[in-house]
């Protein structure tokens, strides 16, 4: 029982992190109808910026405080993501208003390679350590409930809490503010949104900023766990099945999707792995996504597409 719970919890933690990356996809898709292929690259870029700034700031200022270094690195990296968002809107998206979805997708593919290259040019391409002061030691829980208790990683717990807070904040923003309403309006119909005076350029800038911050938080947590390295971009590929599962337009969907995939991966690896020789974790998510595409193409929480004939 303890072992099962441990596996389950481990899956939930990983899932929470998938959710964070998936959230970036959903945000941009919701607000602009663009499937942003560059989300993974943005995660890497943000994590690189964060790691390097945290390293450089004590050298520049001479202040040897971890908290100060991390805080200012976070702010600086966040500001950099805002600049990036502004540039993307200004140089790419503005010229593609009212274009086909495929055109916009290709544009984000281009942006992906550009950001990948840019990040590594500015910040270097080694593996960097990112220490944001998260406790690494595990804790025992439920020792009095059953024998042996279960082992929980404190770092994972904190990460999950941060992710959950971010998600709650974003849901509020989308559902309860008039800017959130304008964002949803733009996602539904560019032309109509413009005709009632919603400024597309501003909306797009805002949403890319928010996606940038989501990428920064995801990059920070993953980076602190695994080190900041190029393989972070492949995280984005892991988040694709999450998005398909949860539905491209749903913030809660991204969360639940991430948790299902995280847990599914771990449980199947542990309990089914031995029968097929292991390695399930690598392809489990994709197969699950495929099954979903067959039976529920709009995902768990996506908006059903109704066509009036």
């Amino acid at each position, binding site marked *: 029982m303890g072992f099962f719970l441990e596996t389950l919890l481990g899956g939930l933690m990983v899932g929470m992190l998938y959710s964070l990356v998936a959230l970036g996809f959903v945000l941009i898709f919701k607000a602009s109808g663009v499937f942003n292929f560059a989300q993974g690259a943005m995660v890497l870029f943000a994590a690189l910026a964060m790691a390097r700034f945290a390293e450089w700031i004590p050298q520049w200022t001479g202040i040897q405080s971890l908290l100060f270094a991390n805080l200012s690195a976070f702010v600086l990296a966040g500001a950099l993501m805002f600049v990036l968002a502004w540039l993307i809107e200004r140089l790419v998206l503005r010229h593609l208003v009212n274009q086909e979805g495929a055109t916009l997708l290709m544009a984000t593919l281009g942006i992906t390679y550009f950001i990948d290259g840019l990040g590594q040019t500015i910040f270097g391409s080694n593996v960097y350590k990112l220490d944001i002061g998260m406790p690494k030691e595990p804790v025992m829980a439920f020792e009095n409930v059953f024998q042996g208790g279960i082992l929980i990683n404190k770092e994972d717990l904190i990460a999950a809490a941060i992710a959950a807070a971010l998600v709650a904040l974003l849901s509020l923003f989308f559902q309860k503010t008039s*800017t959130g309403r304008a964002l949803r*309006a733009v996602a539904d119909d560019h032309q109509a949104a*413009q005709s*009632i005076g*919603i400024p597309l350029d501003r909306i797009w800038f805002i949403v890319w900023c928010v996606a940038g911050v989501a990428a920064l938080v995801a990059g920070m947590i993953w980076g602190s766990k695994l080190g900041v390295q190029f393989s972070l971009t492949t995280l984005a590929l892991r988040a694709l099945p999450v998005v398909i599962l949860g539905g491209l337009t749903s913030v809660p969907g991204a969360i639940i999707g991430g948790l299902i995939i995280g847990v599914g991966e771990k449980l199947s690896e542990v309990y089914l792995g031995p029968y097929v020789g292991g390695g399930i974790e690598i392809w489990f998510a994709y197969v699950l996504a495929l099954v979903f595409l067959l039976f529920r193409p709009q995902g768990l929480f996506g908006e059903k597409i109704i066509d009036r004939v």
Partner: protein
Amino acid sequence: MTKKIGGVILDVNNISLSFGGVKALTDISFNVREHEIRAIIGPNGAGKSSMLNCINGVYQPQQGTIAFRGKTFKHMNSHEVAVMGVARTFQNLALFKGMSVLDNLMTGRNLKIKSGILMQALRLGPAEREEIRHREFVEHIIDFLEIQAYRKTPVGQLPYGLQKRVDLGRALAMEPQLLLLDEPMAGMNVEEKQDMCRFVLDVNDEFGTTVVLIEHDMGVVMDISDRVVVLDYGKKIGDGAPDEVRNNPEVIKAYLGTGH
């Protein structure tokens, strides 16, 4: 019914628009006076929607100018036109389908919302009060259009006639000075058409909103408009009061064809 018709609010001068080799509009001029209902009619493909899209800033005409309240503009996008106080509805509904009726109408208030994102996110007092004020205005429109029962329904699930009403409501939420209606009665049954006529007349009467409306059904238009422009093959063939236009031989020819 007597109403005060004011001075010229919209002045369209020698507009020509073509798509490649196709001439959609040739040298069109007309004006719209404040508080009037001005109709643009014509057979299918006459260039009515193109004309509306020029006024709305969706198309940029190759020649000619459009002046709104004395301000001339040539290259403007729909957002800038919206800021000037022009609202429109769409021929093929362009509502935000996944959102509720209420949210759709609230988006119409977007330009009026002054509080910043941060204020809204934190639900600070002034932002909250502003939101409530806008909500009250929108409720007024909901009452006016008699769609109280559908407030929370996603627009995509409503029948066509009601969606048309929501489209009108969203435009009204902008408190426009000039309202452009692109075939507001297209595809409706007789009863729905009568409702829509009543709403358009009431809007004009109650809020004093100037209305430019496009329609190809002559019957409806003649009853509610003050003056009518008739287009055919991108050219203006008639302009004047409904009765005047009705008896114009060119207009009769365009609609009924020539006798042989």
